């Protein structure tokens, strides 16, 4: 492990990965503050992954995702507009604080919360690796098949918040992923007679269509102009008292640690992620902190500390199921998996043996992202917001142009764009009617692995594989994970409804 740790550092601190981090930093700072999510940029990184070493592209993606999360609370606090689903709870207390002229304290507390949360999440990833190595020695093809399949189902059910809808989406995703050559016997399946689909649906156009296009449309549809004069006042106020905010975070150090641990635990569960973690941490803080029930939602700095530390702890923790078991917890992790697969790095046991150095580099990258981004945000965060707050009718076409170029890199043919349009239409419908989109993305990434392991297992064990104790343990664990995740989600939904009823959310 020590040797791998040294090798990881040797690989990471070379020109390629360093340039990748330098390039991703301003992009993450800008995109975290603007609405639209992080997947458009992730698609661009995916598009460039065949041209670069995996050390470069994996570092770029993980750094970008980690740094992006740090900047998301800024519009929540200063403008009352959550940049993503993971920043909604921050609005409840951050925005009232900004309205009282305490924006700097709110931002300082947020930055320190995200820093500590990020470090704890990275530490969790580091500590999980040796235990995971021993666990993986017990697994065979049957277990990997079941892990992948149940991981897909868990993501689908948890992200849908409803069992039937989630299962249907998982099955639909798996069905879509069957298009193209069969990995079993090379037969071309369900390609509608279209030669372009012989290789199946490519990930770049799928992500661009399912996620980027609907989000760009949402930017335009839900556009609300922001008064620039008010913004100037907020930026001036935000530059003051940041260090007071940092001291406030340390004054509530046990809340900080507790919320980070909640984020870590939630992050390890596939499909749940930051959007639930921050609500759970917020709710637990509200009910356990002294006077929390009366003061949370009215400008209590503890609300910011609890939610933001939990969200950032997810970054490191969600790498555990992704890298070790090949079960991505969301869109960003699915793209990470895709980059690894495209680069010839198989997620799973190899990530803890042959590629342990690459896995450890992910830990370093998360830490570096936090350590570099926080000081920049402390000094320059509000000024970055001035650049980033641009009208949706300017931002949206730029996003569309960028992802169009990225999607075209798949096969450099117009069919890539047709696929973007097709999945874009599907993504719009799914977003409009509340159907989860991540399961389709994850199914496209995992389908080949699922099918191959299933075939190997059937030929090796037959139906007796269902009696293997390891397999039964995985099934039982997944049932528990899905049950706990849905309970957590229900609690988070109650918190969201309660907040909306008290009129604190926008």
């Amino acid at each position, binding site marked *: 492990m020590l040797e791998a740790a040294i090798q990881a550092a040797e690989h990471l601190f070379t020109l390629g990965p360093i340039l990748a981090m330098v390039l991703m930093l301003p992009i993450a700072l800008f995109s975290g503050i603007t609405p639209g999510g992080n997947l458009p940029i992730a698609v661009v990184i995916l598009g460039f992954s065949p041209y670069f070493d995996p050390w470069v592209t994996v570092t770029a993606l993980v750094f970008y995702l980690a740094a992006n999360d740090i900047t998301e609370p800024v519009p929540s606090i200063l403008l009352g507009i959550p940049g993503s689903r993971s920043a909604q709870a921050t609005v409840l207390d951050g925005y009232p604080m900004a309205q009282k002229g305490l924006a700097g304290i709110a931002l300082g507390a947020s930055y320190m919360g995200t820093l500590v949360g990020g470090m704890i999440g990275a530490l969790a990833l580091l500590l999980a690796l040796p235990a995971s190595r021993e666990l993986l020695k017990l697994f065979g093809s049957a277990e990997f098949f079941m892990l992948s399949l149940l991981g897909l189902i868990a993501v689908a059910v948890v992200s849908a918040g409803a069992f039937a809808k989630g299962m249907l989406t998982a099955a639909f995703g798996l069905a879509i992923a069957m298009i193209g050559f069969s990995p079993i016997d090379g037969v071309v399946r369900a390609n509608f007679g279209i030669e372009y689909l012989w290789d199946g649906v490519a990930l770049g156009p799928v992500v661009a269509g399912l996620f980027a296009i609907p989000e760009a449309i949402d930017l335009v549809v839900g556009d609300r102009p922001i008064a620039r004069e008010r913004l100037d006042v907020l930026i001036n106020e935000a530059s003051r008292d940041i260090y007071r905010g940092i001291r406030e975070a340390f004054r509530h150090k046990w809340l900080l640690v507790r919320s980070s641990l909640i984020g870590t635990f939630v992050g390890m569960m596939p499909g749940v992620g930051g959007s639930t973690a921050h609500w759970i941490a917020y709710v637990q803080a509200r009910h356990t902190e002294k006077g929390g029930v009366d003061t949370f939602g009215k400008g209590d700095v503890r609300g910011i500390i609890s939610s933001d530390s939990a969200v950032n702890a997810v970054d490191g923790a969600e790498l555990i199921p992704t890298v070790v078991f090949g079960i991505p917890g969301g869109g960003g992790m699915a793209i990470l998996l895709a980059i690894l697969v495209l680069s010839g790095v198989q997620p799973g046991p190899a990530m803890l043996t042959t590629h342990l150095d690459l896995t450890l580099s992910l830990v370093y990258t998360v830490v570096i992202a936090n350590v570099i981004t926080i000081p920049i945000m402390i000094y320059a965060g509000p000024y970055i917001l001035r650049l980033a707050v641009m009208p949706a009718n300017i931002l949206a076409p730029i996003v569309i142009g960028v992802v169009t170029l990225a999607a075209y890199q798949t096969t450099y043919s117009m069919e890539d764009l047709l696929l973007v349009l097709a999945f874009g239409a599907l993504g719009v419908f799914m977003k409009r*009617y509340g159907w989860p989109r991540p399961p389709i993305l994850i199914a496209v990434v995992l389908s080949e692995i699922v099918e191959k392991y299933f075939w190997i297992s059937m030929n090796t064990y037959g139906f007796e594989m269902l009696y293997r104790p390891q397999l039964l343990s995985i099934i039982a664990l997944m049932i528990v994970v899905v049950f706990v995740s849905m309970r957590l989600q229900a609690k988070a939904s109650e918190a969201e409804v309660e907040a909306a009823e008290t009129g604190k959310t926008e």
Partner: protein
Amino acid sequence: MNDRRMALEIFGEIILVAVIASFFVYLFVQSLSWPFGAALMPRIAVVIGTPFLIARIISLVRRTSLEKGSILDMGFRLGDDPKHEARNFARICAFIVGLYLAIWVFGFHVALPLGMFFYLFFYGRAGWILSTVVSLCFLAVIVGIYDNVLHVSWHEPLIFSLLR
């Protein structure tokens, strides 16, 4: 929510469910002509999905389930002016389709920068300078990175074959 709006809501989701059902049927029928190895997983996907598809159709028909979305999906942010939002929606969708059509006809080098300029100037009200800068940035990326560094082979724009 009044009856007309609810009917529209359900109709939209019925389209989505119909697409899924059609694809399931297509996949299953196609799988009948494949060898067992290739057919197994698609059939499993369809068999797992079909009961839930039927359950979803029944709930839509009975109008018993119209949840807007779950915690992990924000849904579209809708405000107080549905007509304005519908106009915005139509405009951005028309832009996307028009852009892709223009790329097919004229190629990336012409369509993408001009498309950006057009939208930013007329709808984004970005002014001459910003619209031109953004367009030139896209052109610079296309020429500088895609042409000179990655040596991308672009598709032949339709206009070239029409002019020949």
